[in-house]
């Protein structure tokens, strides 16, 4: 696994800001969708996609040796779509068709429609198993690619995620790295009120994973944790990313309402102003 050189965190921060602008803009145009996690995980996924970790070729989305990215909590696909557009998988203008009839950008990721999407996801619990299958597939086909998967604290309420965690550790799958968006919020409210997921690091550790808690809105911290994770042999790895839902839009921060409600025109204007965009 070739690790990226020293990061230019200033440049990465600028990319993250642009991705957030696209996320908010596409959601306002769509009129529905999930801004909270898309904004909260923007720093982690900027680092992954633009910090030299994920080896892909936008000109050849089916390159068999590419690294895979499975967004198992598929509802935060706005951030994935913004990334794919910036990477050149499709024109940025496509972002403004999100969730509309005939759009290449479906409400949840679907590779039949969207270039660069590796798995059809959206039903929580399922995508992580697909990611594990891909990682095992690399082993069985003698390829060297790495599989990254995105998940969330809410998804950790699905039993299937723990079936996956059990099997990944049992089969000593070390080409699988999972990011958990641990923002403490799900659609019905705070995890602690709806269904407390408790200490995710302790749980994954008990399942046999290399697990670390990291501030998911601190790219330098994520970069350091990811370097440690990718050095691990014989174990799957998880970064339990403490993020703040809605980062950095002041009126969205840590508010369950913004898990799954798109901003209206006025809210978009306020949000873009906070990002220094118009």
């Amino acid at each position, binding site marked *: 696994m070739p690790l990226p050189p020293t990061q230019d965190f200033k440049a990465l921060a600028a990319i993250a800001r642009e991705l957030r602008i696209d996320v908010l803009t596409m959601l306002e145009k769509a009129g529905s969708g999930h801004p909270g996690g898309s904004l909260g995980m923007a720093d982690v996924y900027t680092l992954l996609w633009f910090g030299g970790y994920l080896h892909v070729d936008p000109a050849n989305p089916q390159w068999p040796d590419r690294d895979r990215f499975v967004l198992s909590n598929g509802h935060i696909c706005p951030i994935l779509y913004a990334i794919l557009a910036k990477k050149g998988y499709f024109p940025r203008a496509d972002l403004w068709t999100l969730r509309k009839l005939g759009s290449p950008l479906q409400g949840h990721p679907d590779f039949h429609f969207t270039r660069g999407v590796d798995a059809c996801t959206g039903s929580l619990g399922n*995508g992580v198993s697909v990611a594990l*299958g891909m990682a095992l597939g690399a082993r069985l086909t003698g390829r060297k690619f790495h599989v990254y998967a995105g998940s969330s604290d809410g998804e950790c309420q699905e039993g299937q995620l723990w079936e996956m965690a059990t*099997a990944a550790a049992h089969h000593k799958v070390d080409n699988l790295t999972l990011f958990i968006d641990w923002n403490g919020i799900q659609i019905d409210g705070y995890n602690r009120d709806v269904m407390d997921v408790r200490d995710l690091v302790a749980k994954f550790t008990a399942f046999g994973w290399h697990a670390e808690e990291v501030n998911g809105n601190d790219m330098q911290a994520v970069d350091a944790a990811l370097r440690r994770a990718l050095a691990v042999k014989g174990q799957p790895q998880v970064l339990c990313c403490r993020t703040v839902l809605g980062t950095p839009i002041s009126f969205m921060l840590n508010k369950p309402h913004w898990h799954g409600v798109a901003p209206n025109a006025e809210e978009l204007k306020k949000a873009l102003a906070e990002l220094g965009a118009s």
Partner: protein
Amino acid sequence: MSPTTVTQPQQKIATRESYGKALAALGAERPDIVVLDADLSGSTKTNVFAKAYPQRFLNIGVAEANMMGIASGLASTGLTVFASSFAMFAAGKAYEQVRQEIALPVANVRICATHAGLTVGEDGASHQVLEDIALMRVLPNMRVIVPSDGLEAEQVIRAVAATPGPFYVRLSRMATPLFLPADYRFALGRAARLRDGKDVTIIGAGVTTWYCTQAADALAAEGISARVLNCSSIKPLDTEAVLAAARETRGIVTVEEHQRACGLGSAVAECVTEAHPCRVVRLGMQDRFGETGPGDKLLEHFGLTTPAIVQAARQLVRP
């Protein structure tokens, strides 16, 4: 096979046994085949493959939902995946994963589900899935195959290994007669005519098909000419053969170890009502669950064996 031949097969084998044998044989020819099981490899017979090709067999443990997702992920890397469990769990417990991660992405996965239907026998209602054909055939992209004896099961496994895309193959625990003729050849989307007949058509799939042939032979003795179709390919359905039956005989009797709703009989009824309506009498479970007992006794108890088929066909021809 001549319509008047009465077969008394000596040899019996469960279709799951033939599956295990065929899969292991394929393993030698096809290095791209990977097999998954959920802690039932001794029963589903994937253990034959596992023993021969341990590197290409993954036991996922008692976690069928996870297994279906893993199957999809493996298939996405270019592998040909077989995933096995009991039909109750493969089609029932993991239904949503099969829908989302196999049918929707058109994953190159063959779900080979054993212990289907009443003939699980003694394990009882919790293990006797009688709804899986319904669940699977309604899924876009999913093909549903129910081989009727061991010979056909081996051919089906070869056929689905050679044909990309999702398949659901329904297999049985109970040993059943090897009754199909030696020159029988399974073809996807084709229903073989096992008996010629002009008065009535009897359509079976899986373990019931042998009883259909026995019923036709018994009917012949009382002067009723019954055609028998082996409808192992439930989806795609051989609409040509079904519509020919609708046109050329007075009605159709279907027989399956499945709920009457949404199974083989429903598939046949859907076909004829749109193109050439005729009477369709569906023998199957009458909107109820099974119970414990030997498989063959259960089939008899719930009216899915020769006497019940004869009676249904007779009533259809001579109301």
